[in-house]
Structures are given as C-alpha cells and as structure tokens.
C-alpha cells in the first residue's frame, strides 16, 4: 500500500501556518470532556501532557519510572538546536531545515522538518520562560555552541545537562497541571497493550508495577511518547528500563512501524570494559568541538598516547573530512572510528577504542576553559575509567544511542490507527536516516508543546466522545490477554535469566545488525533471532509472582518484545539495499568507504504492518518527495 503523509501543499514556508488554520478546533468548554492518555513523560510526553492539560483537556499521564523527572531525556547532554541566529552567523529556519534534511540523508518528510525548524525558536522562548538556566554570556544574552553536522552555532545549552534542564522544565509545567488537577499522573506504571474500538485507539492496558494490578484506562485518544528502542542491542546509552514495548503492542494492534533499521550509533561513548557491563556511557559529542580524534598510524603501536609523536598519529576525521573535521555528523564519525579499529589500529582493551585528545585545546585555551565547558564530562569519564582526561587522551568508541525509526505517523503525528498519536523518538518523522546532534531535544519539545496541541484537536473534533467504556468487551479481552502472557512468562520456570537472553540478542544484533550490515549478516540474524526467541519461551526463569514488584518480570516482558522486534529490524535492514545515514550496508559504499544512497529505488519510508509473530510483515511505502532541498550526495569533506 502507498501511504500518504498528508503533508500540506504549497510553498513550504507557509505549510504549517496554513495547516493550523485548516484544522478543526475543539470548543474550550468541551475540552474537559475529552480524556487523553499520554504514555511516557520524557520531553515529548511531559510537554504534551502539560500543554494539553493547560488547554483544558482531561489528561492521564503514565510512566514506568517512579517520577516523570527520571525519563531518559534527562540524560541528553549537549544541547538543543534552534534557528534563532543570535550569533549572526547565517542561520535561518531554512538552513536548519536544510541541515536536518541533509543530515538525515534525505529520508525524512520535508514538511515535517520545516515545521520542526519553524517552531524551534518558540521552544527556546518557552524554556527560558520556565526558568531553564541556559548558558548566558557576560552581557546576559543566551549563549550558543556548535555541534556536529552544522557550520553555524545554533545549539543552546545548560552546561553538560541540557536534557536534564529541559526535562525539568517540562516536568515543572506538568507538575503545575497535576496540582491544578487537569493531569492525573500514574508513575511506576507500564503500558502493556493498546485497546482499539472500531479501529480507533481509545484505551490502554497497564500494569501497576508496585501492586502488579493489570487494568484499563480508557480515553478519547492515546499519545505514545515512549522513546526509542536502542536497547535491542542490550548495551546502549539508553536507560535500562527503556524498551520498544509500548510501540510494539501498538504495532501488533495494527500501527505501522517505519524504518526500524535507522538507528544511530553515537561516536563518543566510553568503551566497554567487560562482559558484566550493563550500559555504555555517552559523553556529549560537543566534546568534539575541542577534542581531536586520532589513532596511531602504525599497527600495533603500543606506546602510551603521550609518547606517540605527532607524525605517528592519524587524525583520521581531519584527514578524511577536512571541512567538517572532528565535527563530522555522528554516523560518519562512528563509522570512521570503527574503520580504524577494524584496521587494527584501535586503542585500549581489545583494540576497540580511539583517542579523543584535548591536549591542543588545553594548550590553546587553558585547562580552566576546558573545565568550564566540559567539566562534568571529564568527571564522569574519570569515575568510570579512573583516568584523567585532562592529562591523558580519553578513549572513546561508538555505541547504540538513538532510534530514528519508529511508529509511522502522518503530518498530524497520528499513526495509521486513528486516535493513536506518536511523539518524539517513538515516531519516525523528522530525522530521516540519521539525526543531527541537539535535534532530539528539539523534536521532543516541538511535538509536545507546539504540534500535538493543535493536531489532536483536529482528530477529537471528528471522533465521537467516549467510544470506549471501561467494561467494554475490548477492555476485558485486552486485560485477559495481558494476564495470559504474564502467566505464560511466569510458568516457564526454565534455567536461564532474562539478562542472559538480552545479552545474547544484543550481541547478535550488534555484530550482525550494528554499524555495518551485509546481506549475509542480516540473513543470519533473521535466522537466529527466532531460535533465541523460542529458547526464551522454553527456558526462561523468573522468580516470584506477578502480584508484587517483580523487576525480572518487567524485564522479561520488554525482552520478549525486543526478541520479536529485532527480527523486523533486521528485515528492514535487509530490504533496504542502499546505505543511508545510520544504515550502512557494506555492499553499498563508494570506493572510499562512504555510504551510497540509492534514490532511484529507495527514496521512501518503509512502514511495516504486523501479520503474526512468525509471519513476514507487510511493507507499505511512503514515497518521499524533495521539492525544497535538492537530493544530493551528502558530503562533509
């Protein structure tokens, strides 16, 4: 089936304004009659719940964490982009739009990206008004820094904790609505099913993670703000609790999953130190503003970094990409690091690492300036590695970080299931095949503060109120389905732990569906995943029961979904016979190892429809049209 993103037509500059006028409204007096279920309370979820509550809707917000403030948006470090052009360096909405489309390797919908760039400025204003302490210069004006993939300084930041500060801003707005009674919060609650009535999303089934109770919440629309799926690799920069589950149940209920193979591998993470490791720690790529990436020129050069003279060092990013240098986009920087390590010139244990060296910058600016800019990152590095980054170069290696793919949505952020809206990282919309640094925060808040408040009204004005009642057969069926799955998980009583299965899946995914993929590795993954899945359902051991706090049970549910999702992921990667952005197929590269897109055959988003766990999914295409940006080979040389 050919999907229609329903982008407004006409000059792109006025698409959003025109669309806002064309959409239907809900009468202020009627808003409180509509109940909206917002799942997830990160940047997208908290900002959406707060804004919808403020408009007068009756909102229920859910998160698996014990507080909305702990959603993983909090971990974003570097910053948030906006086209303010405060530094007067040539930025504009069009340039941010252009950079994002190009950065995404021409695999995103133009109109969505334009809207993102357009509202980016409002986000900064909104956050300042909330008391987000963005960095300021000595004159009191907002400060900017530059970030990978852009040649202008458009990134606003709050030390190395921008995500934290933006999330706390959204959380405070949400808290205000909770106090006012427009939003009801359900922490330590996990969504385990989506309830449809007449094909429209009207309810969810949740598990209370404290009491184990399974129950329904019904409403007039469901808004998923449930983040990304990078934990399919087990080891990633994500929070341990982050999962694909909410999206996956929506997919199994008929929502399309778009471009799952587009995952971002972040170049500046702390290398893995052992098998016991539970997560990979990211350090903001803003480090690449002042740090230089290098590896020894010679194979097997085991000298300590300080003893390797300049002429024996290969500053490979500066060599390969002279104009962007160390600020090359994430996918390119990650792949370049992998290339050096595959070539046997990696550093540190197992040779899986490259140096990120601040000696030059410290020499030029002094240690204090570097400390002021990145102090918390150096501290974090030292906590984990016991090495002092001011004295010896840091060692970094790429790690799975972000999911560009996600549930398919139209311009209104509504999935193909009416009433199901998907915001932030959970959807597939604006980043194409690769996301630029400091754009995730921008998207989450754009969707929550400035898009969903308008577009949800358009849907609500056309649906009938209260279509689903709590005692409806659809609700009962969903609860018993969820209960049945939990009982099944608990009754396996096998030998292996959830963590073991997750590790097994993760390592298969990293090796076969990671930074470099080939038909052979993907085919192998597609063969092996069902076997792990079968093992999981035969040999899993979960202690305890379902009527109490049971973290193993929670994880088991998430890993069970990853075990199904991984296959779709690999299938999408196998079908896309081109390299673009975060999706790199070794068969499709230029002579000097750059990604080779195939716009002739693959200039579309692939949205997959569910047909059963062991069935091949059905692919729907949404063709991508580029009328404002010329399709070009993405070059950062």
């Amino acid at each position, binding site marked *: 089936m050919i999907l229609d993103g329903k982008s407004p037509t006409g000059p792109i500059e006025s698409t959003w304004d025109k669309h806002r006028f064309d959409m239907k409204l809900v009468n202020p007096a009627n808003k409180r009659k509509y109940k909206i279920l917002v799942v997830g309370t990160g940047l997208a979820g908290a900002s959406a719940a707060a804004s919808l509550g*403020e408009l007068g809707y009756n909102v229920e917000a859910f998160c698996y*964490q*014990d*507080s909305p*403030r*702990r*959603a*993983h948006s*909090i*971990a974003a470090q570097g910053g948030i982009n906006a086209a303010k052009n405060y530094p007067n360096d040539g930025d504009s909405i069009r340039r941010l739009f252009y950079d994002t489309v190009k950065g995404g390797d021409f695999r995103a919908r133009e109109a969505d990206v334009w809207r993102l760039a357009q509202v980016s400025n*409002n986000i900064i*204003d*909104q*956050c300042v*008004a*909330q*008391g987000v*302490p963005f960095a*300021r*210069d*000595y*004159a*009191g*004006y*907002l400060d900017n820094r530059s970030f990978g993939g852009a040649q202008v300084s458009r990134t606003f930041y*709050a*030390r190395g*904790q921008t995500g934290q*500060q933006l999330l*706390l801003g959204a959380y*405070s*707005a949400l*808290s*205000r609505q909770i*106090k006012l009674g427009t939003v009801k*919060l359900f*922490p330590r609650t996990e969504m385990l099913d989506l309830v449809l009535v007449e094909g429209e999303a009207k309810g969810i089934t949740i598990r209370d993670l404290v009491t184990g109770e399974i129950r329904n919440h019904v409403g007039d629309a469901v808004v998923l703000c449930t983040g990304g799926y990078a934990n399919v690799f087990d080891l990633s*920069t994500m*929070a*341990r*609790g982050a999962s694909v589950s909410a999206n996956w149940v929506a997919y199994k209920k008929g929502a399309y999953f778009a471009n799952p193979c587009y995952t971002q591998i972040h170049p500046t993470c702390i290398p893995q*130190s*052992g098998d*016991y490791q*539970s*997560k990979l*720690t990211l350090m903001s790529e803003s480090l690449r503003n002042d740090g230089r990436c290098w590896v020894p020129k010679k194979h097997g050069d085991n000298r300590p970094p300080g003893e390797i003279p300049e002429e024996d060092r290969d500053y490979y990013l500066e060599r390969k990409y002279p104009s962007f240098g160390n600020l090359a986009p994430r996918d390119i920087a990650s792949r370049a690091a992998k290339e050096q390590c595959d070539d046997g010139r990696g550093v540190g244990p197992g040779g899986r690492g490259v140096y990120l060296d601040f000696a030059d910058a410290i020499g030029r600016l002094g240690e204090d300036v570097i400390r002021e800019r990145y102090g918390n990152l150096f*501290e*974090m590095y030292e*906590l*984990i590695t*016991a090495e002092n980054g001011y004295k010896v170069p840091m060692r970094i290696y790429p790690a799975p970080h972000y999911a560009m793919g996600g549930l398919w949505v139209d311009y209104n952020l509504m999935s193909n299931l009416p009433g199901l809206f998907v915001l932030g990282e959970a959807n597939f919309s604006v980043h194409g095949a690769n996301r630029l640094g400091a754009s995730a925060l921008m998207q989450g808040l754009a969707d929550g503060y*400035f898009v969903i408040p308008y577009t949800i009204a358009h849907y609500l004005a056309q649906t009938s109120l209260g279509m689903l009642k709590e005692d409806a057969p659809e609700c009962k069926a969903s609860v018993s389905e969820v209960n049945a799955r939990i009982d099944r998980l608990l009754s396996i009583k096998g030998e292996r*732990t959830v*963590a073991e299965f997750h590790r097994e899946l993760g390592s298969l995914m990293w090796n076969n569906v990671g930074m470099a993929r080939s038909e052979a590795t993907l085919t192998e993954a597609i063969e092996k995943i069902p076997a792990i899945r079968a093992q999981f359902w035969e040999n899993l*051991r979960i*202690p305890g029961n379902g009527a109490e*706090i049971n*973290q*193993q049970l929670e994880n088991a549910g998430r890993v069970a979904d990853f075990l199904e999702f991984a296959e779709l992921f690999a299938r999408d990667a196998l079908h896309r016979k081109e390299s673009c952005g975060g999706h790199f197929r070794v068969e499709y590269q230029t002579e000097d190892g750059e990604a080779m897109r195939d716009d002739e055959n693959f200039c579309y988003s692939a949205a997959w429809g569910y047909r059963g766990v062991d069935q091949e999914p059905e692919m729907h295409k949404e063709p991508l049209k580029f009328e404002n940006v010329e399709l070009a080979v993405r070059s950062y040389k």
Partner: protein
Amino acid sequence: MSANSEHGTMTLKLIVWRQKGPNEPGRFETYLAKGITEHHSFLEMLDVVNQDLIKEGKEPIVFDHDCREGICGTCSQVINGLPHGGQVRTTVCQLHMRKFKDGDTIYIEPWKAKAFPVLKDLMVDRGALDKVIQAGGYTSARTGAAPDGNSILISKESADYAMDAAECIGCGACVAACPNGAAMLFTGAKVSQLAALPQGKVEAAERVNSMLNAMKECGFGNCTNHFECQAACPKGIDVKFIARLNREYLKALVF
C-alpha cells in the same frame, strides 16, 4: 576469603536489607558477591549477585535504577551508612568497585525517612518529592505565551547560580542523610533556582510558602543546619540554597 577469589577479582560480603513490602518487617540477609573486578560499577556488582540468586531459585534483590549514568536520580542505596556510598559527587550507579577491596563487608540499606516508605527491599517511594514540586516548583508560563528568549537579559552570574541549584537530580540522598528526614536542600535548590531568575521572581513569595507547606504535609522534618545533606548530595548542591530559601521565606513574610 581472598583465597577463594580468582586472580584479579574480588569477593565481597554483602549485608543487604530485604523487605517484602511497605508493611512487612524487614531483615538483613548476607550474600557473597564473587568474581567482581575493579571495573564493575556497584550496580553491576549487584546484577552479578542477582543473577546468582535467580540461578539458585531465590528472589533477586529489588533496587531502583535506570539511566546508570548518574543523572536520572533513580538509584538510591545507603552503602555502609552513607547515601550513594559517600564518594564525592557520585551516585550509586557511578560508584565503582575499585573503591572497595577484596574481602570487604558492605552494608546496603534503603533510604530511611518517614516521607519515603519502603516499597520492597532497597526500593522506596519518593513521590513526596514530586508533591513538593507540584506545590510550586515552577513558573506559571503558559505554552506559547513566552517572549523572545533574549528579551529578558540574565547576568551570567545569575544564570550560573540558577544552574548550580538546578543540577539537583531529585534522588533524595539529602533526605536519606538528614538526621531529621528533612528535604530542605531539595526544596531550597528549586526555590533558589527560580528566585534567582527574573521569570521566577514574580511568584517567589507564593512558591516558597506553598512548597514549605507541602514539605510539611509530606512528613519531611525540619532543618537543623547539620549540612549532612550537602555532604551526601551526588551533585554537590550547596546549603547556601537553604539559606536562600530561608531568605525568600522572610522576604515573603515581610513584603
């Protein structure tokens, strides 16, 4: 014990608080953590112990954790009497086993405060902190109504001061460390952050009063200026923010 350890690894004796539920009595149980290296984080060490427990058919130790990079504020354990283990500016998840040596005995307990009831084992309910924020930890800025970000100039000094306060991760270590179970550092940090910025000044008086009321209703104690909170805070939040809260209270009272 050292004799049992493989080369380069540690064996540790853990004495862990186990409690079925909020109203159940708790007790200490002893476990061995084997094969631990200096690169294990504290939580990874507990993961190892939990894997062993599951294999033995026992219930693993329940503990809160999520981001494992020291920013979400979920992890919450009192290790040998100190919240987060007492390493300067470090959360449990960032505490590494190189701080311990082979054969060490480690006591692990949940946060203890009346406002933080234990849910299970090392997991407590910190919803009270959310209630304090809900009482007034915000500016009442409507979505979309904001003026340009540069229309209000804020001195670098004020922005930095606000950021120092805003770094709080809401983990509750200050409460756990406080002999009075008070949440003054947490509340003080939020009150100070917003009071230091022009956007937040407008509601400063109402904010400080309602947040103080919420603190009391939630069952937090009163500050007696021990400053144990600052020492325990994994983000190094300074007690100057408690003084600022006091100042804001007096301002609200007088003006």
